[in-house]
């Protein structure tokens, strides 16, 4: 399953589903990721500039240190630039009657399965960047940890949270 070559499995049919029944993210999510990454890169650039420009005033920094710093900076910059496209292409999620299934990742691809029976709490959250793109994240809390479905269109996020919430409430009601 995870021999993961990018292929037809990411093609989306008219219902917005991949061949194996997964949802993919909306194209708008890439914009949100890029803006987030651009802000991160700007902050990182300032930090690197400050280190690069001012450290030599207090200490004679060997050339190799500067080279390492710039190499690390360049690698992170490339990662932030390429990451969103790969993340978008690989992100898939599926909500069945019994489980929430999320596949995502850039270098390390993870496949998370949360049995719906284990869900304790649901939260729909929107940061300022996601708000700009009318996107939201659904955070799923279990007793043992947290999983999230990110960059969903707001109505989709709310529908997912509502339906999961109703399902969990129903499970609890049946148990009483």
């Amino acid at each position, binding site marked *: *399953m*995870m*021999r*993961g070559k990018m292929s037809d499995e990411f093609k989306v049919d008219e219902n917005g589903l991949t061949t194996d029944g997964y949802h993919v993210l909306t194209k708008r999510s890439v914009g949100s990721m890029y803006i987030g990454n651009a802000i991160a890169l700007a902050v990182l650039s300032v930090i690197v500039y400050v280190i690069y420009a001012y450290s030599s005033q207090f200490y*004679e920094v*060997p050339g*190799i*240190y500067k080279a*390492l710093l710039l190499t690390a900076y360049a690698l992170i910059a490339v990662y932030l630039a390429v990451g969103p496209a790969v993340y978008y292409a690989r992100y898939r999620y599926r909500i069945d009657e*019994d*489980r929430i299934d999320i596949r995502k*990742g850039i*270098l*390390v*691809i*993870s*496949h*998370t*399965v*949360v*049995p719906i*029976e*284990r869900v304790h709490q649901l939260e729909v959250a929107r940061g300022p960047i996601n708000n700009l793109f009318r996107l939201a994240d659904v955070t799923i809390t*279990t*007793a*043992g*940890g947290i*999983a999230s479905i990110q960059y969903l269109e707001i109505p989709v996020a709310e529908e997912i949270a509502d339906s999961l919430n109703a399902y969990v409430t129903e499970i609890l009601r049946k*148990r009483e």
Partner: protein
Amino acid sequence: MIGEGGREPTSEAPPRFERIPADEEFIQHPVKVAEAVLQAAIVAAFMLFWFNISMMDADEAIAEKYSLYISLAAFLSIVGITAWVAYWRWRRTTIRFGETEMTVFRDTVFKKQIRIAYSKIASTNVNRGIVNRVTNTSRLMININSSVNAFAPELKLTFGTEVSDRIRANLSQKMYGNNVIPADESGTPSIVTITKTDVILHGLLSQPTGSAIFGILMFFFGIYQMITATGDFASGMVAILLAFFSYAVPVVAMIFHYFNYKIYRAGDTIYISHGFVRTYHKSFKVSKINAVRISSPMIPRLIKRYMLDAEVVGLAASDGDNSNKRSPLLCPMKDRGTIERVMSAIVPEFVYEVEMKNQPREAAKPIFIRAAIWSLVFAAAAYLFYDTMVNMQSAEGIAMEYIAAAVISVSALAVVGLFVNGVMSRRIVQYGRGEDKFTFLVGVVDRKITTMSYDKVQMAEVEGGPFSRPYGLARCKISLLSSIGSQNIRSGYFDSEELEAISEEVVARIKDGRYDHKIYL
């Protein structure tokens, strides 16, 4: 020795404590007020002591003249206010035990009502410190089945020992449905005999290998620095202090903690008691165990010693405020045979026949690629360290040949260690699946065999990195409720589809009804 002693604790044991009617109201023992006052007095005395010291340095004569009076007044005020608040809270806090839930009501300015259903309680534990022993009281700690409050018990109630035992017996009856009561604890034989030597060995050997090696190295380095002419006495003292706090203190704490260790099972409930100065009495239902772990750091493994512990939500909190990272110990360091017999006697639910699989041959590739990457990182860090020392040499006159030899030796050792770890890991790390349980064996140095029930898995994540994916391999992260809230348990590299089977089984068991939540209430 297993199952020694004659009397088997059974549910037929007659209850020795009077039933608590729903309308009976309890207030805590007045020592609760004394405890609060004592704590406040110690903190206040400490702070005011430093205040006085700082005043002595002040130039103003007035500060010198009045600082003692100011401190005394502040001390008395703090102690007085604390006593008044603590008394008020104690007097106006009542506890009732209803048919299905217990209620704590505090009628002060900040009103509070805590209602806890017996079905939600994970464990009730008794903790007796020096103050409790002197005043013949017990601190009853009630933990609910929640990861959010795993670090602190939901309720800490102080009662006279008899009242506390009566309450615990009633709670035990309501929660577990058995009649085993605290009064039976002294008479019930332990399922395994733990001698004083066992406890001392456990204290000495159960520390993680890293901190043991660090402590020993620091100790010898400190001695060397202090007794040789070229050494520096002050840095020797620092090294010995480091050894003391990183190894000696945890060892002594562990020995005191697990002194007089005793464990037995009555029906579905496990009872554990231990402690030298402060005594601990824990009880929890077997159904509340999320995982059972046999572990052995490297040094005890050389003499074939292992220990057994369990992940039970909320149990970390039972140890009080000073040691909330411990999962309940089911057996201190013993030989493997004894550990397995204790496991069969105490938690047979976690014993099963399983064929453990080693990591596949292809796993060597991601393992060695990781080792190579880490070796490069380590070598680069060592080079940078050496380079920095060269730059400092002109100023400090450090003997570079020694530095170079040390850096090269440490780097070479680290690289060799990483690759040896890789080779060993291929042979050691295992994974096995049974009908309702599965097991991960990890750890080349500090080994851990964790057996988990599918029904306790909260979330499963299978991760494949760029070096493992081409070979169809992945690692699995299982999220469980644990003694410290939640915990992730990771596997080694295995076929991704085999690891995916764990989450498939978890979901399948829920779907077809093999998972029954009532069993775990």
